[in-house]
């Protein structure tokens, strides 16, 4: 049901435009600030237009070690990408297999297994961070990609989502596949995975963002700049107690930190829109 009233149209557009400005202004300020030099940022007014530096600030953070971080942003982006990809892909792979076992196989204590997985939803990283840190430290995983990824790699949410999806797959499909000579692996590979592409794409976006935005765990487990992630580094850039915050550098780094998540969303959106259009019925 849509209402057709000019007054309502104007009001709702005004509201939308306001909201849009509220969302976009900080981004715009970040973009313009990243093109200024430090002096012009400390004049007391926020610049609303591009400055003199152009893309030099970006070039600088990408190629030279940044301030007190001791490494360039390229390295940080790489670390973050490895971690986010590892977490997203790992979570998806584990969730798919776990849900597959729970839905399609009959084994003793199946229900218990499901509930145990489900209960871990109540234990986010923050709750178990001390013991997890201890385990990671004992295993020698500090300052390593494995250490960044492994503790975050299992996901009850994703398992639950895949379970719900698998439950909607008609049982005849499995039976037809069995009659057609497909074993469990083949059924998973040839039938179940192609049918879950939409779910996988959606989860990948969510889990990539989750991994990318991790702060507390990378902060704990990385002490060397070689393995530091960009989100943690951003915060460290801001906390320069003794001298002025290099806002142009911070803004350039922040904008660069935004790019991979944006790229993932834009790329994957196509997949799940396609998935939705292609879906049966």
């Amino acid at each position, binding site marked *: 049901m849509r209402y057709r009233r000019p007054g309502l149209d104007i009001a709702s557009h005004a509201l939308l435009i306001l909201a849009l400005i509220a969302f976009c202004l900080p981004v715009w300020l970040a973009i313009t600030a990243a093109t200024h030099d430090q002096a012009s940022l400390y004049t007391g007014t926020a610049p609303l237009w591009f400055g003199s530096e152009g893309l030099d600030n970006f070039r600088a953070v990408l190629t030279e070690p940044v301030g007190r971080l001791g490494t360039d942003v390229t390295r940080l982006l790489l670390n973050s990408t490895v971690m986010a990809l590892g977490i997203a892909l790992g979570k998806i792979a584990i969730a798919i297999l776990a849900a597959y076992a729970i839905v399609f196989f009959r084994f003793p204590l199946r229900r218990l297994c499901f509930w145990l997985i489900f209960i871990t939803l109540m234990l986010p990283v923050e709750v178990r961070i001390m013991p997890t840190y201890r385990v990671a430290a004992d295993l020698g995983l500090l300052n390593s990609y494995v250490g960044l990824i492994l503790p975050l790699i299992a996901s009850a949410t994703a398992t639950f989502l895949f379970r719900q999806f698998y439950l909607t797959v008609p049982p005849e499909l499995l039976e*037809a596949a069995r*009659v057609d000579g497909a074993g469990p692996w083949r059924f998973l590979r040839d*039938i179940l995975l192609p049918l879950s592409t939409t779910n996988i794409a959606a989860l990948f976006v969510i889990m990539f963002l989750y991994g990318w935005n991790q702060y507390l765990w990378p902060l704990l487990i990385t002490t060397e700049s070689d393995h530091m992630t960009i989100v943690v580094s951003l915060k460290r850039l801001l906390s320069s107690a003794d001298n002025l915050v290099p806002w142009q550098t911070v803004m350039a780094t922040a904008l660069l930190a935004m790019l991979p998540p944006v790229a993932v969303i834009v790329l994957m959106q196509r997949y799940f829109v396609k998935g939705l259009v292609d879906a049966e*019925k």
Partner: protein
Amino acid sequence: MATLRLSALRKTYPNGFTALHGADLEIADGELIVVVGPSGCGKSTLLRMLAGLESISDGELVIDDRRVNELEPAQRDVAMVFQNYALYPHMSVADNMGYALKNRRVPKAERRRKVEETARLIGLEDLLDRRPKQLSGGQRQRVAMGRAIVREPRVFLFDEPLSNLDAKLRVQMRLEIRRLQKRLGVTAVYVTHDQVEAMTLADRLVVMNGGRIEQVGTPMHLYERPASRFVAGFIGSPAMNVLDARLEGDSLTLPCGTRLASPVPSPGEAKTVCLGIRPEHLSVVPEGDAIDGDLSVRVELVEPLGADTLVHARLEGQDDPVVARVDGIRAVAEGDSLALRPDAGRLHLFDPETGQRLDPLEPECQHSTFPA
């Protein structure tokens, strides 16, 4: 191309429910067996046990002299057509049909050739690149058939494959299934609850009720000599009229006083029996010509079907109306009183308690060997 032997096949679920109480059946090579019965009678369970989708609790299933109880569905070399077709939604028609061959590692070129050959056979050659959702119900049904045919299995299993189609298409596909099955000469087991489908398709019919096989035989045999009241009511449409009667010596007495000659003489004392008369074996007798043994009834409802007219009439002393199938042009109006004459040679007597037929069946249809 196979023979099947089912000996005392039982299915008991872990919760204690027995879906199948020991089924015995022998199926000859190339035979089309239709299993028919009301919903919940165990016919689908039986089929799924043949396919290997349900485990066999007890008894033995033999395909071509080899016990297959423990084999996986694929190893039994059977193909199944499902009620909802169960096509793989993300695969093209060609991939759907070729999937079993792919799993058997048939080389690509040969797979392609076989799929195309089968597609030609069932008229799908123009649709090979389509996805299932781009097909109509009838076309999907064809793909499901093609998927079964392309594998050249030893046994076809059909689980109510036509129940999702509209009436016209169902008749057409029914004929096509029959034609294909005979042409390919593959043994087939076909489950349905539609008795017309069952009658027209079957070489032999298996009527099931409550997890038991009630009777096995050719469709005409089951029609002419139903072994029990259940089979009598299930085969034939409209259903057989069943009247209460008393059997004494060689005469039957109905509660309304009408006396008929009994097809089964009973030497002993008088007993209550159920008398079965099919609607098509009752003919309307002009008033005045009625003789002893005709049923005088009052017409309650007339259903003209074109070729025939169904007359529902009330017979004194019976709870249910008697249905007669009479000539379409005969003018019968509701409220008329008329006489119905049973065809004396086509009366069926059943025991009211056990429901079993009173006269012994001929030996060949008591058990389930196929007349050679």
